[in-house]
C-alpha cells in the first residue's frame, strides 16, 4: 500500500511505516549523525532529556503515568521521574491547566498533556485569560513558562469531539506561542525549545503522526520557535502546509513532479510567531501559492498566511492564493464521511494545477 493511500485510510498502526517524506530534502542543523525514530519517540526523548536537564520541568495530564498516556508518549517516564514530576490528574482540564499557570508563575516548567486537543476548550479561560496575560498584567515582571501539548486531527474515526484542529484559535491570542511540528525531527527540536521558552507555548501534535518515522539528529537538537522550514525546494508553485498536511503536500509534489511541475513545500512549523520572511520569499520566487491545512477554511491559519503573503508579495503573485482545507463542517465519524472532509493529495494536486491555469 503506497504512502498516500495509507494516509487516506486513516489508520495509524504501529507496524513498519513507509518513509512518507519521499525524496524531500530535510534541512537540519550542524550534526550530521541521524537516528531513525517515530514522532512519538522523538517527543518522548525530548521530554526525558529536558526533565533530566532541568528539575523544574514536570509533566501533568490524564493517564500519563504507568499507562504511558493515551498515545504512549510518556511511557516509562514515571518509572524514572516519580509520581510528583509525572503528575497524573483527575478529569479537570480547567483546574489543572490553571494549576500549571500558577506553578509556572512560581518558577516551575510544567508540560501539560491534554488527551485530545478538542478538550482544550474546557481550559480556554485559563489559557486565554490567565496564561496568556499574566506577563502583561505584571508589565513584564512575571513569566508563565508552560507548555500545553495535545494531539489534533482527524482520520481515526473518533467523531466530532476527538478530531478537531484549533491552531487558529490560539495563534489569535496575544501572549501565546503556537507550534505545530510535522516531522519527528521538528517534534523533538520544537518541544525542547518550547520547554525552554519563557512564554506559554501551545504545542499541537497530530494523532496520525505519532507512528510516522523520520531522521532525527543525534545529540542536542533544538529547533527555534518562529522559523519555518522549506521541506522541499521547487520553482513553480509554493505549497504552505501544516502538520499532517505537510506529508500530503509532499506526496502531491512527488506526483506533480512526474508531470514536470516543480512544487516548493514550506512548513511554517510555528504559527505564532509566524516566519513571514520565509513564506514571502518563497511566494516571491514562485508567484503562485496554495495554503493547505486540516482545519476548516474560514478564519483558519490559512487566512492569516494568505493575507501576509498577499500583502508583502503582492507584486510577485501571478494568481490569487488558493486554500485547501476541510469544509466548514464538524468532522464526522463514518469512514467515507470523515475521509471526504479531510483534505487529500488529490485536492492539493488540483489546487496546484488551478493556480498554474491548467485543467484539473
Amino acid at each position, binding site marked *: 500500500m503506497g504512502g498516500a493511500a495509507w494516509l487516506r485510510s486513516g489508520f495509524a498502526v504501529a507496524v513498519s511505516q513507509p518513509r512518507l517524506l519521499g525524496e524531500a530534502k530535510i534541512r537540519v542543523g550542524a550534526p550530521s549523525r541521524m537516528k531513525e525514530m517515530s514522532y512519538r519517540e522523538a517527543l518522548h526523548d525530548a521530554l526525558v532529556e529536558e526533565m533530566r536537564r532541568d528539575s523544574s520541568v*514536570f509533566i501533568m495530564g490524564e493517564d500519563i503515568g504507568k499507562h504511558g498516556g493515551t498515545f504512549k508518549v510518556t511511557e516509562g517516564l514515571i518509572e524514572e521521574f516519580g509520581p510528583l514530576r509525572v503528575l497524573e490528574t483527575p478529569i479537570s482540564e*480547567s483546574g*489543572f491547566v*490553571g*494549576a500549571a*499557570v*500558577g506553578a509556572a508563575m*512560581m518558577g516551575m516548567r510544567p508540560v501539560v498533556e491534554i488527551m485530545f486537543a478538542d478538550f482544550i476548550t474546557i481550559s480556554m479561560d485559563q489559557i486565554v485569560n490567565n496564561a496568556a496575560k499574566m506577563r502583561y498584567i505584571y508589565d513584564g515582571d512575571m513569566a508563565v513558562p508552560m507548555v500545553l501539548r495535545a494531539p489534533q486531527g482527524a482520520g481515526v474515526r473518533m467523531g466530532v469531539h476527538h478530531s478537531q484542529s484549533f491552531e487558529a484559535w490560539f495563534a489569535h491570542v496575544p501572549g501565546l506561542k503556537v507550534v505545530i511540528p510535522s516531522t519527528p525531527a521538528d517534534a523533538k527540536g520544537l518541544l525542547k525549545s518550547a520547554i525552554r521558552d519563557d*512564554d506559554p507555548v501551545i504545542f499541537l501534535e497530530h494523532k496520525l503522526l505519532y507512528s510516522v518515522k523520520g531522521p532525527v539528529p543525534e545529540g542536542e537538537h533544538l529547533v527555534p520557535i518562529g522559523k519555518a522550514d522549506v521541506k522541499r525546494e521547487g520553482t513553480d508553485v509554493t505549497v504552505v502546509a501544516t502538520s499532517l498536511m505537510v506529508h500530503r503536500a509532499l506526496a502531491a509534489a512527488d506526483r506533480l513532479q512526474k508531470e514536470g511541475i516543480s512544487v516548493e513545500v514550506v512548513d511554517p512549523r510555528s504559527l505564532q510567531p509566524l516566519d513571514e520572511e520565509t513564506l514571502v520569499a518563497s511566494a516571491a520566487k514562485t508567484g503562485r501559492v496554495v495554503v493547505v491545512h486540516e482545519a476548516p477554511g474560514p478564519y483558519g491559519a490559512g487566512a492569516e498566511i494568505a493575507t501576509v503573503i498577499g500583502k508583502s508579495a503582492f507584486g510577485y503573485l501571478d494568481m490569487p492564493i488558493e486554500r485547501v482545507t476541510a469544509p466548514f463542517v464538524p468532522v464526522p465519524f463514518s469512514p467515507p464521511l470523515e475521509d471526504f472532509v479531510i483534505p487529500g493529495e488529490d485536492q492539493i494536486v488540483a489546487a496546484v494545477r488551478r493556480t498554474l491555469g491548467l485543467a484539473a
Partner: protein
Amino acid sequence: MGLNDDDLVKMYRWMALTRRFDQRVCELQHQRGIPELQHASIGQEAIGVGACYGLRPDDVILPSLRTRAAFLVKGISPERQMAAMYGKATGAGRGKETSHHMGDRQLGVVAGSGVVGGSIPVGVGVALAFKLQGKDSVCLTFFGDGATNRGDFHEALNLAAVYDLPAIFICENNLYALSMPISRHLRVENIASRAAAYGMPGVTVDGNDVIAVHEAVQDAIARARAGKGPTLVECKTYRWRGHSERDVKQVYRTSEEVERFKALCPIKRLRDLLVSRGTVKPELLDGIDAEVAEAVERAIEFAESSPYPSPEEALNNVYAR
C-alpha cells in the same frame, strides 16, 4: 499564634486604612471620576486583615476582586494602589490592569483574574509549586460566595485535596453575588459544607471578627505547613455599598438590611473590644484614624501627580522574547 495588644492595634490600623482608602476613592469616583470603577470592600475589612496578618514573606496571596486589605497587608503601598486605580505609570503593573488584579512578584501577590472564579486553579498551582519545591510556604486564595458556583472552584478544590496541597481557600461570603442573594444562588446553609465534597476541612467563621478570622486561617496555615493539606475557610460578612460604584441604587436589597449589618462593623467591634479591656485608649485609635486619613490623602496626591505611561507602552511586555 496569639495576638497581643500590639498586634490588635496593628490590625486595627490596617482595617482603618482599608476603610479610609475605599471611602475616599468612592467619594472621588462620584465627585470627579477616576479611571477605574471602584468595587468597595467597605464592611469586609476584617477578612483580608485577619487572614494576611502574620504571613511570611515567602507565603503567597491571590486576592479577590474585593480584597483591598490583603494587598495592603502584604505590602503594596496605598500610593501604588491609588496610582494603579488612576492607571498611572507609578501604579503596580504600570497601568496594564486595574487595581483589582495587581500582581507583585517580590511581595508574593499573584494577580487575580477578572473572570470570577478563574483564579482559584491558579492558587492551587502556586501551592503545587511549593510542594514540588519542598517548601512549607502556603498560598491563600480569596473569592466571594458567587465564585463557589464556578466549575473552577470544584476542580481546584478537588485537585488541592488529592495532591494534599498547602492551599488555603478563603471565601468572603457577603451574602450577595452582585444582585443575587445567596438564598437564590445556592442551596447550602454554609459554603464551608462544600469542603466535605472534596474531603477537606471546612470552617465557617464570623468574617467581621478579625480575631476569629485570624485564628481560623492560622489553624489552616499550620495544617498546610505540616503537609496536612488544604482547608476551606468561609468568612461571613456583608458589603455596605453596591457591587460597584455604578450599583448605587441596589434595588435588590433594602436599606434596613444594610443598616442592620452596618451595626456589625468589624472596625467598631475591634475598637470596642480594645477599649472595653482598658489596655488601649480610644485616643490612640483616634490618632490612628487621623494618621491613615493623612496616608490616604498622600496616596491621592501621589496618584494625581503621577504621569500616565506613554501610549506606546501598550505594546510592551506581551512576550518574554
